């Protein structure tokens, strides 16, 4: 890294060259206000807030006013932030911005974490002088996620720069003209983009605020937060969930330099409400109706385990490593089943093996963003791993960045680089079943069946490396496309292949690996998306597939069945699960939300959610990260691992850390998880880390209605965090940092003070630990599937795409997210539709060949869908279709 | 030869009892007077004019736990408050309340008083030592140094009176003042004696052994209940005793027209006590080094000068 010396207010600083002066100042921790600049969005120089005085040389005493965000740092440059003219300029400027700002702070959700409040105070403008008329705007309805309050706008343009330029949304524009500009949609309606929630953090004031948070609002200083990891997909984005009065109030982004950076997807941000769901399982239940006390439930659980046949345990990809391991310890390794469908497990095991021994680097999302040619095989990342989709969207910009570099333009000159993007785009190829949300930036899209997608991948690999096996019988168009993709990938400096479990085709994963392997000399990288938060971690525990458990029970070689945080009806055909649960001697289910499996439990134990318990998750790139309880679970709810530990007679494990250590010891591949976060004995200057901010209010009144004598603060023996305001305030490692706040910086922008370098890694290193690095050699996969041939009269049902809203089990219980979930329906090719004489919106009777299943669903015509395929969309009714095999279709009537 | 005239047992008992009663009542008097000077009302809830406040305080004190800290030297800890109470009470033996009222008539009465008031310092030292507490021992040390120092000037300052009256017998000293109170010829001696008396009784502003702001409560930090009460009453006994002696030595004792001698004595003593309280209510406490410097650098020379001057004048007058 090249460093240069600059002089700010007479003090010498050494900064990284190539950055803007504003970035340098923020890295140095100097208080220089800004609005329009954002580390991820670059500089446009619109708000005139970061004005400084720049001097020509040491002798110059006059200087000139310049915008720090638009000024590159140069060696020996001399500037002043504190100069009187610069301060006055900034003060007058913000006073002008404030002339139309309403007197809203007390009734504004942003109040207390408002960048505008911070900057106004920073610039010293504390008294309004303007007495004239204020401009007002009408608000719009923007869907269930965001509130709109346009009066508060200061026209910094950050929202549209994020929403349209960065996230690729097309329905939020700047409307109107001159000083009447309006940021909104052409008409009322939900914001369509999957990353709209970030507007609440991107907007420096309260124009866009979190609507779900507003429904049960608490000020930022009143939220008890703990460092956490999103459980709604396999990427492991870092989040800060906030609690007040025993309810989870909201989730905000927790910066992680390698994964989520500054942004979260809407599922991660708004899916949290399942924790507050009125349907939550809150008491132990017998046969799904009789509530019993926790102790009685515990005794009954023990009694069930003491049957003459061994108990079997079914783990879950959405449960933590600790929970799965506790189950495995309880029932024994030979009785532990992963709780995954065989096909999915095979895919995940392949991914696991490729990560460990494939010899191809798996990039973090930060590295993904730097790829300059991307091939997506069979995935729809915006739906299956949304934040990955956002990162992939940024990859097409890399050609423009390279061109800007050639022209001597710094990459943060946003407007200029965006202009270059019109001519210079890095190639992005998408091979998928249905249209994806990245098609608008893709160079070429290929729509085919999963088999054909895999075959294209194999063909690309063969084009890149003659040694790779070649699929037989490709047509000319496919050959040409494969050659084109191969050429683009070969030219790239950092080519990236994306695949995953999304299309349900193992061959697609294998093909993706072949391409990456062929690209190894060119620095090929390979990233897989996995469906659930701990899919990979569970796969590393060597559990057996679910079907074997079914066999055990059918053969009467198993007694009690313990199902932990898993709805088997999402994993296997309903008949098989019905039979399994029927035959099982006793069924114990430990989960947080009711589902079909829980409904059939003989003993149902209430499990804590991620917000109430600790756990370690392994994300799609093999990074182990730990989440911590935000608040103690309300009795008798307990972490699933606690129920399991308590059922063990002779275990050395009594605490969470023991469990983690035992798990790490049992599996060499998981040896690193102990270091994912500091253990419960960790202290900063002999102090625990407080979950509550220093200004946490109402402690002596919040429970006074129950009893005026205040109870002792809840104690946390399992982690290094405390349910208190007291404790360490600085020097907290990133894995334990609950929320970013620093005096004077109350908004999300406070993260500037916690980064080693703006937009880079957190000081002291990002949280979590990578369990894999590219090693081994790996062999070519040679089993190439045959091309898909539609059989007349029969359609193949493809697994329902994991839609960002509703595709995940837990988040569907969040009302706001459920509102955005797509309606149930099926997609059909126009030719097929013509054969069946159905039009879009009409209903179709779907029956499996064996007659076990029959559904009537509305149909939607999808022109790019391959013939002979039927894609089920919308949940939860469509899950059953996934197991149906070939189906017959018939026009039907609306039921 | 010791010339003693011991009073009747009833008189002795009456005098000692009233001394204790007066001392206890002083608690009320002091609070009332301080309130008057501070524009307050003072205790007025218990009994008429709050007079039963003393009784209330006594009851409270009696029923408090009689606590001896486990780290204390127990016998000494118990002994210490008894000493101050006993010595102060014994001091009243020589006070001539009226021509025919008194416990004992010693011809070395003044010396007896000086001796007893010196003895009381043992109480502070032992209390400080026995408490096994840093504040207490500091308080004890201060008490020792302060009492010993001021004892010197006190002794010297009254020698003028002894010269003028030619006797150590307090009754004869009173009789010697029929022609005029010794306050006039012995004004300097009176001043020195007054300051020394305040210091000896460890009253504010010279209450350095128990300076609350520095030493919690000095030598009696660890005391509570009746043992504390004995220190407390001991202090008021000291005030009463000092006042009585000041009246005897400088204000003509029981002498006075119209009224009965005993009343005169009580009246004068009362005014003197009130003055003690006024001083407490008005003056700030000096630093400890200031106290010692004032004693040795000002009071000692002043007392010596008084002694020499009185002697010279007495001799001169005698020669004429």
């Amino acid at each position, binding site marked *: 890294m090249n460093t240069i010396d600059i002089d700010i207010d007479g003090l010498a600083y050494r900064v990284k060259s190539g950055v803007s002066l504003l970035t340098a100042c923020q890295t140095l921790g100097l208080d220089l206000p800004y609005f329009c600049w954002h580390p991820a969005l670059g500089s446009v120089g619109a708000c005139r807030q970061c004005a400084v005085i720049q001097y020509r040389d040491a002798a110059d005493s006059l200087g000139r006013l310049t915008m720090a965000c638009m000024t590159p740092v140069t060696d020996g440059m001399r500037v002043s932030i504190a100069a009187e003219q610069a301060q006055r300029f900034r003060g007058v400027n913000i006073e002008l911005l404030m002339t139309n700002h309403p007197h809203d702070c007390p*009734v504004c959700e942003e109040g207390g974490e408002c960048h505008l409040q911070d900057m106004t105070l920073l610039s010293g403008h504390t008294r309004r002088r303007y007495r004239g008329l204020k401009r*007002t705007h009408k608000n719009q309805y923007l869907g269930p996620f965001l509130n709109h309050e346009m009066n508060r706008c200061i026209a910094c343009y950050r929202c549209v720069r994020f929403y349209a330029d960065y996230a690729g949304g097309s329905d939020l524009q700047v409307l109107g003209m001159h000083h009447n500009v309006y940021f909104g949609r052409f008409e009322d309606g939900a914001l369509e983009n999957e990353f709209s929630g970030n507007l609440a953090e991107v907007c420096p004031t309260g124009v866009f605020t979190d609507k779900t948070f507003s429904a049960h609002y608490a*000020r930022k200083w009143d939220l008890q937060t703990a460092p956490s990891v999103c459980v709604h997909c396999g990427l492991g984005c870092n989040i800060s969930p906030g609690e007040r009065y025993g309810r989870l109030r909201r989730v905000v982004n927790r910066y992680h330099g390698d994964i989520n950076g500054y942004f979260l997807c809407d599922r991660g941000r708004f899916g949290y409400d399942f924790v507050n769901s009125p349907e939550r399982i809150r008491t132990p239940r017998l046969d799904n109706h009789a509530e019993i006390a926790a102790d009685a439930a515990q005794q009954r659980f023990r009694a069930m385990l003491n049957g003459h046949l061994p108990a079997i345990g079914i783990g879950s990809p959405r449960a933590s490593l600790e929970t799965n391991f506790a189950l495995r310890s309880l029932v024994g390794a030979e009785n532990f089943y992963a709780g995954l469908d065989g096909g999915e497990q095979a895919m995940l095991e392949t991914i696991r093996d490729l990560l460990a021994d494939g010899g191809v680097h798996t990039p973090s999302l930060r590295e993904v963003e730097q790829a300059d040619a991307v091939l997506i095989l069979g995935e729809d990342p915006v739906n299956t791993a949304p934040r990955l989709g956002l990162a992939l969207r940024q990859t097409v910009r890399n050609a423009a960045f390279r061109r800007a570099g050639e022209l001597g333009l710094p990459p943060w000159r946003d407007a200029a680089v965006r202009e270059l993007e019109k001519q210079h785009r890095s190639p992005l190829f998408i091979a998928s079943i249905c249209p994806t949300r990245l098609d608008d930036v893709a160079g070429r899209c290929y729509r085919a069946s999963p088999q054909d997608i895999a075959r294209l991948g194999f063909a690309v690999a063969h084009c890149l490396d003659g040694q790779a096996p070649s699929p037989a019988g490709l047509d000319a168009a496919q050959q040409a496309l494969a050659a084109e993709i191969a050429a683009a990938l070969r030219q790239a400096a950092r080519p990236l292949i994306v695949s995953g479990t999304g299309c349900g085709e193992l061959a697609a994963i294998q093909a993706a690996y072949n391409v990456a392997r062929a690209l190894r000399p060119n620095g090929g990288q390979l990233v897989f998306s996995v469906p659930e938060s701990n899919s990979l971690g569970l796969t590393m525990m060597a559990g057996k597939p679910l079907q074997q458990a079914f066999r055990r029970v059918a053969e009467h070689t198993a007694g009690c069945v313990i199902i932990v945080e898993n709805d088997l009806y999402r994993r296997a055909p309903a008949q098989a699960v019905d039979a399994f649960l029927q035959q099982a001697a006793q069924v114990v289910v430990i989960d947080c939300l009711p589902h079909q499996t829980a409904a059939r439990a003989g003993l149902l134990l209430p499990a804590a959610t991620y917000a109430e318990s600790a756990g370690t998750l392994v994300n799609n790139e093999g990074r182990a990260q730990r989440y911590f309880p935000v608040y103690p679970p309300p009795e008798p709810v307990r972490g699933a691992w606690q129920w399991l530990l308590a059922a063990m007679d002779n275990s050395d494990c009594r605490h969470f850390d023991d469990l983690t250590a035992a798990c790490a010891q049992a599996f060499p591949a998981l040896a690193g998880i102990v270091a994912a976060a500091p253990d419960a004995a960790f202290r900063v200057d002999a102090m625990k880390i407080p979950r509550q901010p220093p200004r946490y209010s109402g402690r002596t*009144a919040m429970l006074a209605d129950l009893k005026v004598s205040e109870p002792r603060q809840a104690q946390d023996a399992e982690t290094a965090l405390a349910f208190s305001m007291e404790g360490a305030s600085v020097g907290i490692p990133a894995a334990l940092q609950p929320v970013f706040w620093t005096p004077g910086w109350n908004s999300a922008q406070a993260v500037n003070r916690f980064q080693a370098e703006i937009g880079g890694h957190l000081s002291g290193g990002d949280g979590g630990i990578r369990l894999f690095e590219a090693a081994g050699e790996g062999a070519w996969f040679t089993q190439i599937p045959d091309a898909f041939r539609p059989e007349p009269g029969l359609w193949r049902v493809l697994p329902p795409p994991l839609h960002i809203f509703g595709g995940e089990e837990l988040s569907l219980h969040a009302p706001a997210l459920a509102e955005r979930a797509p309606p149930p329906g099926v997609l059909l090719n126009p030719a097929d539709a013509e054969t069946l004489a159905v039009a879009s919106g009409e209903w179709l009777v779907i029956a499996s060949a064996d007659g076990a299943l029959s559904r009537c669903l509305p149909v939607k015509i999808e022109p790019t869908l391959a013939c002979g395929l039927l894609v089920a969309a919308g949940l939860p009714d469509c899950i059953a279709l996934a197991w149906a095999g070939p189906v017959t279709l018939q026009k039907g009537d609306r039921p | 030869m010791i010339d003693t005239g011991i009073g009747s047992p009833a008189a002795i008992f009456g005098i000692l009892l009233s001394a204790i009663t007066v001392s206890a009542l002083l608690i009320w008097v002091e609070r009332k007077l301080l309130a008057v000077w501070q524009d307050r009302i003072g205790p007025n809830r218990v009994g008429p004019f709050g007079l039963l406040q003393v009784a209330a305080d006594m009851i409270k004190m009696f029923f408090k736990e009689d606590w001896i800290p486990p780290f204390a030297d127990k016998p000494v800890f118990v002994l210490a408050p008894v000493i101050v109470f006993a010595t102060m009470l014994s001091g009243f033996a020589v006070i001539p309340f009226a021509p025919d009222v008194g416990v004992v008539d010693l011809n070395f009465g003044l010396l007896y008083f000086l001796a007893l008031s010196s003895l009381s310092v043992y109480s502070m030292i032992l209390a400080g030592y026995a408490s096994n507490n840093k504040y207490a021992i500091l308080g004890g040390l201060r008490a020792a140094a302060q009492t010993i120092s001021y004892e010197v000037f006190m002794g010297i300052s009254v020698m003028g009176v002894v010269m003028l009256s030619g006797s150590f017998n307090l009754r004869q000293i009173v009789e010697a003042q029929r022609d005029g109170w010794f306050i006039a010829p012995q004004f300097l001696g009176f001043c020195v004696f007054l300051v020394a008396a305040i210091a000896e009784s460890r009253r504010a502003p010279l209450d350095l052994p128990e300076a609350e702001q520095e030493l919690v409560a000095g030598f009696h930090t660890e005391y509570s209940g009746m043992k504390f009460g004995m220190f407390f009453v001991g202090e008021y006994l000291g005030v009463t005793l000092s006042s009585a002696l000041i009246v005897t030595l400088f204000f003509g004792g029981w002498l006075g027209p119209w009224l009965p001698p005993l009343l005169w004595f009580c009246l004068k003593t009362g005014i003197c006590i009130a003055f003690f309280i006024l001083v407490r209510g008005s003056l700030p406490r000096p630093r400890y080094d200031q106290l010692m410097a004032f004693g040795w650098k000002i009071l000692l020379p002043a007392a010596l000068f008084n002694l020499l001057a009185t002697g010279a004048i007495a001799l001169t007058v005698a020669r004429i």
Partner: protein
Amino acid sequence: MLSLLRTLWEVCKHTLVKADTVQYPEQKPALSPRYRGRIVLTRDPDGEERCVACNLCAAACPVDCIALQKAEDESGRWYPAFFRINFSRCIMCGFCEEACPTYAIQLTPDFEMCEYDRQNMVYEKEHLLIDGTGKHHDYNFYRVAGMSIAGKDKGQAENEAPPVDVKTLLP
């Protein structure tokens, strides 16, 4: 030395000065309207609750004895769903009143609130809310703020221009 005597004299002069003591409870002290006693929640001149549940009083409270929860009515007006003051903790410092941007929370000259049962010191909104405007008669926060509520649409607050028509082409 003379200053000591002067002090004695000055103190002595107070012998005949009348005592300032007020014989409470037989004799009630005269308290100014600004006296900091029992806390109330007031209403605006239109008779609506003034409190907008902004939480600033709770944040300012040095003993953290105020707890409340924001709620919103159909028209977008914020109000506290519950508002609780634990008077057994309150130190009557008045910081809440100073922090309140809507003049909702006010301290009154009533300090006689002893209870035998400490639980009775916990006041909920229904105990706190009074029917008047308290010390500030004319202020109505929503007349000044930009949020629209029932009976006051955008552009109808004090010093507000009518809402902008974003579709106009006029300069």
